[in-house]
């Protein structure tokens, strides 16, 4: 065990810090979940990509720095420490990209990764459907082979598609074989341009009022064969790789929570100085700070395990339960500190609270995650 950063890692941290402190926009950008803010955020992504900081964990040939998980965690810490903007490219670079690296052809990687990293092509995730939320295997959007044209014809509807109204592409799970015995079989992972004929996108509001969600209607949309990721009818298994990243490390690195916890401590100090925080507030604040710190340590342990060739697997569900519920507690502590003023803090803590409330829901509700932990980690019977 060695918890002090190696000189090389420390150098990487300093380098990242220097660049970020220099380049991160001084004023907060408008919300990336609005049309206007999305554009501003994409510009920031380009700046990062061109300087080699957008996708540090990718190989250099695709614009990254080949950073290990440990280094990526360092970058994330530094990024959120200086208040770096929300990553609107996140679903592409953190969810699709790992799958492309694992299952994509060399041509697909060349075609899709650089513009994704640079924000020139933006991606949303097309998994959930009106009747397939927790029960993802109930996906009903179909793709039928069109051998004449060498591709697939897609029909159906996706929903809760984050930033779908602003994105160029969607990676989607669709049903290509309806005759299978088990619902997880017979699905295929497709890369679909949202500019295709037959695609209609309707943005709708999330809880905080931003147009951060979309419904995507697909009517006879043609998708060529070279936009199938992985094997036909094996889409579920291809997608699971992404799911593990999503629940596990890449969606919510500790750096984000460390930064929020620090902001909470600052808020608490202000309120204490004004005599407006109680011992109970103070305890809620330090709990949140400690929880963020515990999560950081937990993830470092996971990073070592992965570096040793281990696999996160079902433990990613524990990870997801922890960060999502911690984030709710952290923001609730802030609102309680603000007391009656919380309702008006709409751009900071109240917005953050609403965002945090999504955590126990998306990427598989925490009820499902607890089932997964009990069944796959502890071995309890599935019934």
């Amino acid at each position, binding site marked *: 065990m060695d918890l002090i950063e190696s000189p090389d890692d420390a150098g990487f941290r300093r380098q990242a810090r220097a660049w970020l402190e220099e380049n991160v926009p001084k004023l907060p950008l408008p919300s990336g979940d609005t049309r206007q803010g999305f554009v501003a955020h994409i510009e920031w992504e380009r700046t990062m990509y061109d300087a080699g900081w957008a996708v540090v964990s990718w190989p250099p040939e695709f614009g990254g720095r080949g950073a290990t998980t440990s280094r990526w965690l360092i970058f994330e810490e530094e990024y959120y420490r200086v208040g770096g903007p929300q990553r609107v490219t996140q679903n592409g670079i953190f969810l699709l990209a790992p799958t492309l690296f694992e299952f994509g052809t060399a041509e697909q990687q060349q075609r899709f990764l650089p513009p994704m990293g640079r924000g020139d092509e933006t991606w949303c995730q097309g998994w959930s459907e009106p009747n397939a939320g*927790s029960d993802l295997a109930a996906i009903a959007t179909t793709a039928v082979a069109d051998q004449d044209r060498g591709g697939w014809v897609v029909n159906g509807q996706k929903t809760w598609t984050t930033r779908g109204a602003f994105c160029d592409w969607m990676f989607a799970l669709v049903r290509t074989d309806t005759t299978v015995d088990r619902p997880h079989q017979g699905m295929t992972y497709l890369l679909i341009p949202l500019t295709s004929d037959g695609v209609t996108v309707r943005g709708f509001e999330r809880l905080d009022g931003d147009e951060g969600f979309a419904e995507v209607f697909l009517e006879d949309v043609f998708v060529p064969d070279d936009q199938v990721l992985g094997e036909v009818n094996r889409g579920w298994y291809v997608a699971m790789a992404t799911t593990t990243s999503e629940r596990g490390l890449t969606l919510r690195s500790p750096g984000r929570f460390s930064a929020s916890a620090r902001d909470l401590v600052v808020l608490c100090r202000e309120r204490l100085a004004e005599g407006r925080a*109680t011992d109970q507030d103070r305890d809620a604040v330090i709990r949140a700070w400690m929880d963020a710190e515990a999560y950081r340590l937990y993830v470092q342990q996971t990073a070592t395990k992965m570096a040793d060739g281990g696999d996160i697997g079902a433990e990613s569900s524990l990870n997801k339960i922890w960060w999502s519920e911690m984030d709710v507690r952290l923001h609730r502590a802030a609102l309680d500190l603000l007391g*009656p003023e919380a*309702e*008006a803090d709409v751009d900071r803590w109240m917005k953050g609270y609403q965002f945090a409330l*999504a955590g126990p*829901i998306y990427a598989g509700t925490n009820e499902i995650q607890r089932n997964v932990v009990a069944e796959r980690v502890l071995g309890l019977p599935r019934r």
Partner: protein
Amino acid sequence: MRFAFTDEQVELGAAVGDLLANRCPPEALRAAWSSDDGRIPGLWSSLAAMGLAGLCVPEVHGGLGMSVLDAALPMVACGYAGVPEPVVPTVLIAPGLLAAAGRHEHLSPIAAGDTTVSAAVLDDPWFVGADAADLLMLVGHRRDREMARLAVLVDRDRVDLEPVPSVDGARRLTRGVAGRGLGDWGEVLDAPDHEIDRALDRGLVGMSCLLLGLAERMLDLTVAHVQDRQQFGVPIGSFQAIKHHCADALLALDVARPVVWRAAWSLSNLPADDPAVAVHASMAKAYASDAAAECAAQALQCHAGIGYSTEYDLHLYMKRVWTLQRAWGDAAWHRRLVASAVIEGDYPDHPAPEHP
């Protein structure tokens, strides 16, 4: 000893609920979010016409002369509908306080529905719906009940009101900026401390009733949703985790109810200077805040993605809860008040015939 509402009280609550089901459905509330004043056109007159505005105004001034206890179920109905009107200040806080201060001239207009009141109460940093209100009041003191009480009839000419956003689009907040002392804001009402205390307690109980109603609404939405929504081939309400979420929400709500009713009864039946009343009112606000927060949390989690959009109705009620649960003292704040009375003070530590 009889712990139940009368049939008349239940009927009055139901009548208000029926009116609001028609006049304040979710669509009307949505419209209020984007209207100028955050209110529903004509709703206050309708409520006044059925007597709500003057419920606690003496009959001699055109009201119904009813008690806080009589007002409890109508207030719950207002909470259930998410009414975006100044019900608590107008119906519960102002009439008794104005009467105690000898300012009877406002009572008839209140009862008639012509005058509505916005009140900044206790630690409120702002007024809600000040622009649309006819009277502005400051009642209480900030953060510390031991300080001298104060009630002020605000003079708009002496205050600058700056708009402040709220997470609840139907709450139009304005922060007042004026001179240093509270008295600078207008006319200090000449009412004894205990009358101001009871006005505050009526406010707390009214707020608690709203919270109970909101909690009930969210639970109803949730129970309907989990019976309807199918995943894995069954209604999600058949999963034990969802059942237990719903049971926890109901438990919080069911336990809070009699605590709130008791406070309403005490305000209506105990002497105005009985110190137990404040303890009962603080308990009401503590339990109602916690119950509504619990129902909000379970409701959102049970609705999952479907509830996480403004296109679905849940957010209208949930966001109201987020505001009210922390207004006029959150649960922890009110527990501290109760603790002062019970642990350090002389609140009776065991039930006795003379103390409900």
